[in-house]
């Protein structure tokens, strides 16, 4: 059993209800979720579209406040400055400042992490090399393709050498080669002691990279465990858990 300080992320009975302007509830995006991510593991948060993965991630990051339940990050309340200092985050879409170059983007986030000049320069060089953007480092990211922008965002999530890396659909928008690179990267980082929490609905990717997964459906966890303990492929397990009765009804449209 891992002891308490090895639990990096802990969710207990977490709920999130979004409300409209008049505070009337609109969606219950997360519904009684228990979860824990341990040091050094790659944890996959899987689930179909709209199942509450990104919402869960944002509560862990302290960007959203849970409606009920408790979230702890390194044993601290999420959003506290010391928790934020140990965190890297790659959002679902890259959300870059279009007028900055790749290098300036990394420099900006390095500044926010309070890195000194020499470290910043060194890390920017390493990271640009790592994501293969050294040649275009001085072009504004507004002109980057989706995949290139993704790499910039990924690099900037790593700029502070985080203990916990939170990746929301890291491979979306990447070609198969880059997808593979990202998977390798995640495995390398984990081997180096970094804890990774990633969401995905690409089961193949998750199967290869994650040590443990939780499957969300309608904001509830429908299964949780080690990938190696599933006994079946993640694909069929997933479809069995959440896929029943879900099929696009094409016939009426074709009539």
């Amino acid at each position, binding site marked *: 059993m891992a002891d308490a300080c090895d639990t990096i992320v802990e969710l207990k009975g977490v709920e999130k209800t979004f409300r409209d*302007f008049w505070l009337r509830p609109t969606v219950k995006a997360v519904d009684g979720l228990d979860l824990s991510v341990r040091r050094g593991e790659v944890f996959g948060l899987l689930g179909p579209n709209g199942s509450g993965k*990104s919402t869960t991630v944002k509560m862990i990051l302290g960007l959203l*406040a849970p409606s009920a339940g408790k979230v702890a990050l390194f044993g601290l309340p999420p959003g506290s400055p010391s928790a934020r*200092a140990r965190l890297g985050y790659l959002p679902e879409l890259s959300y870059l400042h279009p007028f900055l170059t790749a290098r300036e983007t990394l420099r900006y986030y390095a500044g*926010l992490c309070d890195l000194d000049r020499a470290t910043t320069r060194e890390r920017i060089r390493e990271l640009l090399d790592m994501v293969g953007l050294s040649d275009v480092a001085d072009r*504004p990211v507004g002109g980057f393709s989706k995949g290139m922008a993704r790499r910039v965002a990924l690099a900037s999530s790593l700029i502070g050498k985080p203990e916990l890396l939170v990746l929301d659909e890291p491979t979306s928008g990447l070609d198969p080669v880059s997808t593979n690179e990202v998977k390798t990267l995640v495995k390398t980082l984990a081997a180096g002691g970094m804890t990774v929490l990633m969401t995905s609905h690409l089961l193949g990717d998750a199967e290869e990279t994650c040590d443990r997964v939780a499957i969300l459906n309608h904001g509830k966890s429908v299964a949780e465990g080690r990938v190696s303990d599933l006994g079946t492929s993640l694909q069929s397990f997933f479809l069995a858990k959440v896929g029943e009765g879900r099929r696009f009804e094409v016939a009426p449209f074709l009539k």
Partner: protein
Amino acid sequence: MRAFFSVVALQLKAAARSKAIALLFVASLAWMFAVPGLVSGDGTADGAHQVFVRYSLWGVFVLVLVSLAAAGAGSLSSDRDARRLQLTLVRPARRFAVALGRMVALVAVGASVLAVCALVALCRSDASRRCWHVLSPVMESPRSEAERAYRRYMESPETPDELKKTDKRVLVRILERKAFDRYETVRPGASASWRFDTARIGADDDIAARLRFSSEMGTREDFTGTFALGARTGSVSNITQTVVTVPLAAADAAVAYAEDGLVFTNSGRDSLMLRPRRDVQIVHSSSDCTFARNLAFALVVMVSMLSAVVAFSVFLGAGLGRSPAVFTVMVTLFLAAASPAVMEDYQDEVNSGKGDRVGLALAQFAGVMTRPLGSFSPIGSLADDECVELRDVARAVSVDFVLLPLFFAFLAAFIMPVKQESAIAG
């Protein structure tokens, strides 16, 4: 600290690369050079200088204020609207530093535009041109004069009952304004005198009497006469300027301050009407009160006012979306600019309707809330060759430049994360 500078750099790049800075510089400089051709003075060199300084700097200041208020309101809000702000919020940087960095960068942009325009104004004017410290007559305060008049009204049997029943505060407020604006008539051949606190005048200062005809009634009085302050005298004849400065030359400096009354003797053919509290001044100046120094002081005050506005708008952007933030800050600026005029126009609270009184109350409220911005006084003083006094500079710097930005940055930091809730998924 590094986070702060990163945010400053980010905001500067945003401003520069959107071409906003270039546009602002071009527009401001174009205005500086266009003004002399667009507005003409009264034909004198002094008049041309006054008009140039007033309208060129006033135009640039309004332009800078409005554009940077809009930029400030859009800076954090547009980042959130584009969902970029979350990437800053998950970093360990203090949110206070994030808000303050935005403010400082925008103020730096505005300050540099204002500084360049001030430099243009300096080059086009005489840098050593004299500026004056202004003294107003020492008189009973308008307030106590109003109280006295009120008592007289209430005791008089001729006062209509209806008026006697009116709220005392309203009446006194009206009477106070009337007292402030009270006219005094100097008939041909007669004299009038006003007392001044001459102790403030330095021994070697140049002294002049000054009349400002800013009223609606006699914008340009044609008058002739003599001023005397102790042994100093100066005469004036057939002048039709709005601001008349009459140097008081001393026959014998030793007796100059024996008396502190300024006496005016009307030797013209017409009566002269003036409002002593507004129109009559003694101005004095030592050799270090130059236009260059005054311009520098006015610049500091303008930059301070700009800081307060930018800080407020960045704060709004931290809590609202881009459009509502920009709208709110524009409405605030408009209220600040309009409320003094509204209060001036609605002098008669007793006879005005309910709606008008509500409007007046709102204008008064807006006027109080935005008092530091309600008048573009540094530019007015500069144009009129009046010294922007050190105490005004100190007040502007400490309140508008330091306190308000810190206060708004603190508030902005507080509300910045709250708004995430309503941002759309993603």
